[in-house]
């Protein structure tokens, strides 16, 4: 279980303190899927990076299974079982896919790289010996990134827009993979996404805007909200749809 209490993150830019995240309070339970959604620039990735330790919090506490991890660095958090699949994973000249998966699994865990790649819709024969360099497309890179998270035994796995760049045909497979991970392990799964089909996997949906948690709701509620969004418009001007959006993004 991951508990986040009164978390604030600020960054100093041009001598100005800019608030990135404000007063975040969240309890993420084992064996549950949380989907974080909300407008671009609202703080979703920042929250994910703060959980991984990539961003340092200015105040507040983060606890993993009761242990205070607020002051721990990336490596220490990773070793306790936190994982983060990057939104834009980096490329590595000279590092092969199978080597990356081995690094991800760690020295003591045996993995079957064929199964891992199958789970993200890639053929092991074509990919295991390829270097993760610029010959990879964005979508291929994202799948390797997801496979590197699946290779680990995690307490908390955070996926940052995992479906971005993944083609329609593979989308179904990806949803099944999340479901399987959910059923087979006690992992707390956090997925940042805007996709309705990903929202449908959620036990709870967390709406983040302007660096704050706007609302925590059931997927049923957000899905019905989206339906009404489809019928209305967000501009709130006197346009054709004359919209009255029911999901308030605190604009």
């Amino acid at each position, binding site marked *: 279980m991951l508990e986040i209490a009164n978390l604030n993150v600020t960054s100093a830019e041009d001598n100005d303190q800019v608030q990135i995240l404000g007063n975040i309070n969240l309890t993420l339970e084992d064996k549950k899927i949380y989907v974080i959604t909300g407008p671009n620039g609202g703080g979703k990735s920042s929250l994910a990076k703060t959980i*991984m330790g990539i961003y340092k919090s200015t105040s507040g506490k983060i606890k993993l299974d009761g242990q205070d991890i607020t002051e721990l660095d990336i490596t220490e958090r*990773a070793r306790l079982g936190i*994982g983060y699949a990057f939104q834009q994973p980096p490329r590595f*000249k*000279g*590092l092969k896919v199978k080597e990356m998966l081995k690094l991800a699994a*760690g020295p003591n865990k045996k993995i079957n790289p064929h199964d891992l790649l199958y789970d993200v819709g890639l053929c092991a024969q074509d990919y295991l010996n390829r*270097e993760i360099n610029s010959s990879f497309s964005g979508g291929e890179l994202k799948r390797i990134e997801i496979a*590197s998270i699946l290779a680990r035994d995690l307490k908390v796995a955070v996926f940052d827009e995992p479906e971005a760049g993944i083609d329609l045909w593979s989308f179904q497979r990806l949803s099944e993979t999340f479901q399987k991970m959910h059923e087979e392990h006690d992992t707390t799964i956090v997925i940042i996404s805007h996709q309705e089909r990903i929202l449908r996997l959620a036990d709870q949906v967390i709406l983040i805007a302007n660096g704050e948690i706007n609302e925590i709701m059931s997927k049923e509620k957000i899905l019905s909200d989206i339906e009404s969004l489809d019928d209305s418009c967000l501009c709130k001007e006197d346009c054709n749809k004359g919209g009255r959006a029911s999901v308030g993004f605190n604009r």
Partner: protein
Amino acid sequence: MLDSIDKNLLEQVADLHKIPQGAYNIRKNGEGVARNTTKNIDIVTKKDKPGIDVIVKPGTKNESVHIPVILSEEGLDDMVYNTFEIGENADVIIIAGCGIHNPGKKKSQHDGVHEFFVRKGAHIKYIEKHYGEGNGTGERVLNPKTIIEVEENGVVELEMVQIKGVDRTIRDTDVRLHKNARLIVSERLLTYLDQTAESNITVELVGENSTAQVISRSVAQNDSKQVFHLNLRGYAPCRGHIQCDSIIMHNAQVSSIPEISALHSDAQLIHEAAIGKIASEQLIKLMSLGLTEKEAEDTVLKGFLK
């Protein structure tokens, strides 16, 4: 004849654990100490200057030649001239390389001039590894010069590696490619402490449809300095591509000086060069898998120099 220091040097520069199979010539502290020739590959000592002639008969296939040089004393200044005659349609691997163990205060230096004649349709893979060790303060210096003439339809693959322990190096490589000849160069260089390295590669594409690909990757650490002059000259319809990538760390300095000259309107030449630190995203990604920052750095460098 070969003690444990020699054996370690041989392992480092030629991946040799014992006396190799096939043709070989081992040179130690300025003298030839072991040699073997085969039916197809002859090795002859030069009469006018130090060095050997390696003669590969036309049509020789799947054979290798090991010609390692080891220096295990301080104060040596070894100079050697080797000539390789690779017969038509031969296909061989040549493993050269030099290891210096300098136990003392005086400089130990090995300068080698390697000249290759790759005849029509022949294919060689030439691997040259340079390595230095020893607790003394004496400098370990290696200055190789490689001159290669590649005749019609010939293919040359060069693998030049210097990863550890060489304090000063100036490496000159000059290649001339004739009709349909192909060159693939892969250079790997790591310098640290106050080491200096200079690599000058000039490729002249004189024949129609000749192609050259030069990939140079280097890592400069501590206070070391590296300079690269990579030069392609196209005199005919030809294609050439240089890719020069360096990772710079600490207080090191790297200069990458490109030169491409098209002397024919159908010459297509590309030069790409980049110098930069290890991308922080790469380190963060590996750390988020549980590696320490140091382990992450080593993993990135190891892959980069592979």
